């Protein structure tokens, strides 16, 4: 997340100049950790990395917003360490330039290829608990498709393995190699073509950057998490979001994509002479190659779109409502969210999130909410269909007044309320707004009161910006989704499910819960988004782990041993169930090819019957 300017604070100054992960706060944290663990020596690269940190504090603000952490402590520690090391007359280890590095530098230019351990170490690990550290031999930042072709040819000639990192980052433990890491961060060209309703993007372009560009032009893209690259996310997962309700997923998202295959040859997916990558095979397959460009779809936006939340006490009711919206083509983005998601999306601190998560069901009587974005006609329909609705105005009020919503005196009053309506139904009544206004005192200052004192003025400025409480904006840019890992690292399990079989969906949730509980792993329902007119949906269930605790890694290893056979068996016998594991790397396929079955033996006796 520190590679995108999602709060408008600007970026860590050295990152956009040097592009390597090591020059961003994330990389400096890894480097300090590696130094502390004596995994790397002090190198020339490390000195430069430490020296280019200006202690400007941007990382503290950015990181606190979604993790609650304050990386400045580490940045200071790194600089202090280097200062002492110099004082003691330390001599930096020089990195020898071998033949491969020479070749790589010939392709991309001297500054964009390295084998400095301080830089390599920032590509050697990720939070996924089942993969250990693997130091690459080289990291290279290609600047063009030709660079990619040449690097792959070089790797093949030298029999070196290679791995691609879209934006330098990794979470699933897949993109490690002892060979060459290609970080696509320099390839960030992006062109919007409004007449063609498309954006032409290079592989270093992030979802946030593309959405921002589209948004400026009154358009929208079906975007992944903000820091994920557009190309990488399509290739890996097919890109899904709450907007997939109308925009679909996988091949629905793009017009064409350009790849460099494993032999170093470029091709386009629309080329009729190539292998059909739009097809789907229920197997773990490699990606079509290294994506070097994509022409992705853009969608129109009307000026009256707003978000609404429809609270429910019960999962079944919430799912039925979401399906109803999708079947009736009401609304754009649609999702069933649990208390855990809502609490973290709304709360600027994990303490407040924990209290809200508990209060939503216990005090307000609301365990789930259907989130929807719609124009005024859709919202009118939703209001008529639902008993109680949190509209944009009320949402803003609740979010800005959150600390007071959770004030013990008010919570007590609501908890003991024995009225005929559920508490949330009462609070959603429009006549109650003046009272809520008085109780919550919603303002940027009120919500900023929930964070560390020295960050309050920054948060006040942040929440004074209308988009920070705008459900449409927040959902388009997804900057609060990253808060899901604020407490612990989140391991997301994604399954396509048949939306007309709530029993199947509930069964999946229960089994995920049972497996995690048996191991004592924190777990919670994530979200459910209808797809393809409510026929199918994508379900996320999340496990939360401390990735630094080896005991938790062992637990994850054991649960994976249970989840894989269970989900495989379930998918084999239940139509519409498809685990994302098999879609992974087949994200360019048509969704119909993994959401539905293809040819089945004909059972009818002939035409006309």
């Amino acid at each position, binding site marked *: 997340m520190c590679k995108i300017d999602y709060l408008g604070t600007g970026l860590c100054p050295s990152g956009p100049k040097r592009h390597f992960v090591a020059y961003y706060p994330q990389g400096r944290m890894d480097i300090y950790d590696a130094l502390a663990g004596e995994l790397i020596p002090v190198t020339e690269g490390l000195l430069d990395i430490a020296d280019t940190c200006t202690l400007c504090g941007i990382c503290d603000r950015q990181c606190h917003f979604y993790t609650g952490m304050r990386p400045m402590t580490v940045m200071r520690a790194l600089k202090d360490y280097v200062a002492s090391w110099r004082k003691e007359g330390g001599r930096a280890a020089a990195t020898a330039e071998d033949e491969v590095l020479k070749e790589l530098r010939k392709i991309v230019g001297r500054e964009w290829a390295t084998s400095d351990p301080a830089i390599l170490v920032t590509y050697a690990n990720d939070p996924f608990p089942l993969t250990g550290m693997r130091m690459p031999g080289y990291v290279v930042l290609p600047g063009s498709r030709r660079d990619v072709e040449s690097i792959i040819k070089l790797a093949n000639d030298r029999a070196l393995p290679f791995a691609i990192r879209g934006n330098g980052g990794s979470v699933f433990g897949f993109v490690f190699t002892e060979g060459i890491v290609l970080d696509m961060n320099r390839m960030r060209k992006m062109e919007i073509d409004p007449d063609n309703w498309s954006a032409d993007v290079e592989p270093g372009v992030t979802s946030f950057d593309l959405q921002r560009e589209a948004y400026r032009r009154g358009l929208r893209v079906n975007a992944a998490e903000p820091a994920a690259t557009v190309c990488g996310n399509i290739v890996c997962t097919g890109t899904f979001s709450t907007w997939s309700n109308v925009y679909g997923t996988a091949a629905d998202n793009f017009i064409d994509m350009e790849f460099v295959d494993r032999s170093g040859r470029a091709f386009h997916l629309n080329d009729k002479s190539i292998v059909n990558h739009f097809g789907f095979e229920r197997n773990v397959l490699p990606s079509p190659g290294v994506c070097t460009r994509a022409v992705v779809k853009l969608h129109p936006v009307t000026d009256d779109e707003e978000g609404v939340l429809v609270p429910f006490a019960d999962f079944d009711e919430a799912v039925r409502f979401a399906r109803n919206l999708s079947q009736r083509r009401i609304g754009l983005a649609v999702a069933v969210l649990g208390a855990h998601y809502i609490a973290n999306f709304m709360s600027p601190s994990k303490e407040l999130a924990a209290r809200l998560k508990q209060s939503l069901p216990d005090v307000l*009587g609301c365990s789930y909410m259907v989130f929807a974005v719609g124009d005024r006609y859709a919202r009118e329909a939703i209001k008529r269909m639902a008993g109680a609705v949190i509209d944009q105005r009320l949402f803003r009020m609740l979010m800005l007044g959150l600390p007071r919503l959770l004030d*013990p005196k008010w919570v*007590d009053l609501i908890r003991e*309320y024995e009225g*005929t*309506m*559920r508490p949330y139904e009462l609070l959603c009544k429009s006549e*109650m707004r003046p*009272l809520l206004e008085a109780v919550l005192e919603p303002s940027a200052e009120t919500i900023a009161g929930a964070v560390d004192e020295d960050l309050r003025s920054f948060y006040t400025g942040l929440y004074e910006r209308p988009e920070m409480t705008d459900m449409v904006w927040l959902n388009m840019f997804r900057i609060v989704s990253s808060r899901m890992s604020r407490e612990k690292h989140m391991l997301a399990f994604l399954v396509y499910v048949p939306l007309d079989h709530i029993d199947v969906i509930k069964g999946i949730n229960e089994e995920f819960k049972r497996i995690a509980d048996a191991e004592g792993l924190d777990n919670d329902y994530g979200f459910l988004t209808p797809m393809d007119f409510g026929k199918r949906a994508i379900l996320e269930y999340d496990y939360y782990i401390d990735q630094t605790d080896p005991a938790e890694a062992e637990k994850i290893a054991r649960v994976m041993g249970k989840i894989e056979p269970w989900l495989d068996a379930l998918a084999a016998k239940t139509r519409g169930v498809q685990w994302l594991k098999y879609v992974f790397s087949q994200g360019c396929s048509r969704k119909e090819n993994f959401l539905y079955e293809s040819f089945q033996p004909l059972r009818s006796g002939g035409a006309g019957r």
Partner: protein
Amino acid sequence: MRISTGELKRTRAERKGRILLTGGTGFLGSHLAAGLLRSGYKISLLARPLKQGRADERVEKLLDWFGIEPGLRKNLQIVEGTIEKPGLGLSGEALSDCLENTTELIHCASNTGFAERKRPEIEAANIGGLLNVLDFASRSRCAFFHHLSTAYAAGRREGLCREELVDTDDFTNVYEETKARGERLVSDHCRTAGIRLNIYRPSIVYGDSRTGRSLLFNALYYPVKTTVFLKNLYEADILERGGRKAAMMGVRRESDGSLYLPIRFEVESAEGINLIPVDYFVAAFTAILEESLEGGIFHIVNARSTTMGDLIDYTRRLFNIRGIEPCRPEDFGARPRNALEILFNNYLEAYGPYMRDKRTFVMDNARGILARRRIACPEFDFEVFSRCMNYAVEVDWGARLYGGV
């Protein structure tokens, strides 16, 4: 019967038996426990471990709150268990000990929620929990079951309600319904098992009429607590933030320093709410326990109800509030309800049937015992109201009782 009247009298007089009390950390249960300990009875108190603390820690805090002398505490045994589980969640030695030594059982544990949406948990406690307790009683040496019910098990009706099992399916809410079902269950079960049975039916219980002290601040307290919350909220708005939000609601400060809160309460008739203080409840319960050896059903109620008009008047006087007015239902047609009125109206939809109660609870069984012991229900006048509400404010409606039990 498992025990003869004579033996029961002897066991009681010599304080030989042990009474197992469920719900002993609740409002009524804890007051009963304190009262019975002071009368020299030996009590086993069933308490759940909660996140607020271990059962014994919570009970210790309660005993401190009641001022139970250390010498009396030796008669109290704390049993960590729950009515939610068969065998009360006990096992091994703890279970054998309870089964062997329980001679009487007072069942106070109950879910007093009204809302239909809470039916599963209310049924789980008031029916499922009761069945677990009855099963335990059958397996134990328990010879007398004291079942705490409610006067409102009578169901939705008007006129006289007698001290007998009711036969109706018409209830105001799930609480009444489950308590009535519970009475029938306990009655059938005790008859079959040869266990003597008293059913106690209090009306709505508030704090101690002599001291104002209470452990629970719902029911009668809730609308007053809400009124005080709103008063503090709007006074702070007026005094500290210019009063814009108060003005939006038509709230203002009067020249005499009082606060004008525009809240109309729907009052249909002169009927009122049947309130008894907890000191009267404990005295009456103990008297009935000691005197009704053959068993029976007993109303513990107030012969005189308190009207909504009285409650509104007391609240206005004590908290220096104006604007709260009783009104007729048709008055809301001319001016729709504001946010404050909607808040109260929804509450009154649940509590209204108790505030406009047309039931008269006959005390034929209880009256004689209470008269012999000279136990009379104190009147709920402004003085008692003030005492109770001042205590509630002093302990911040329970938040400052003893650090949370």
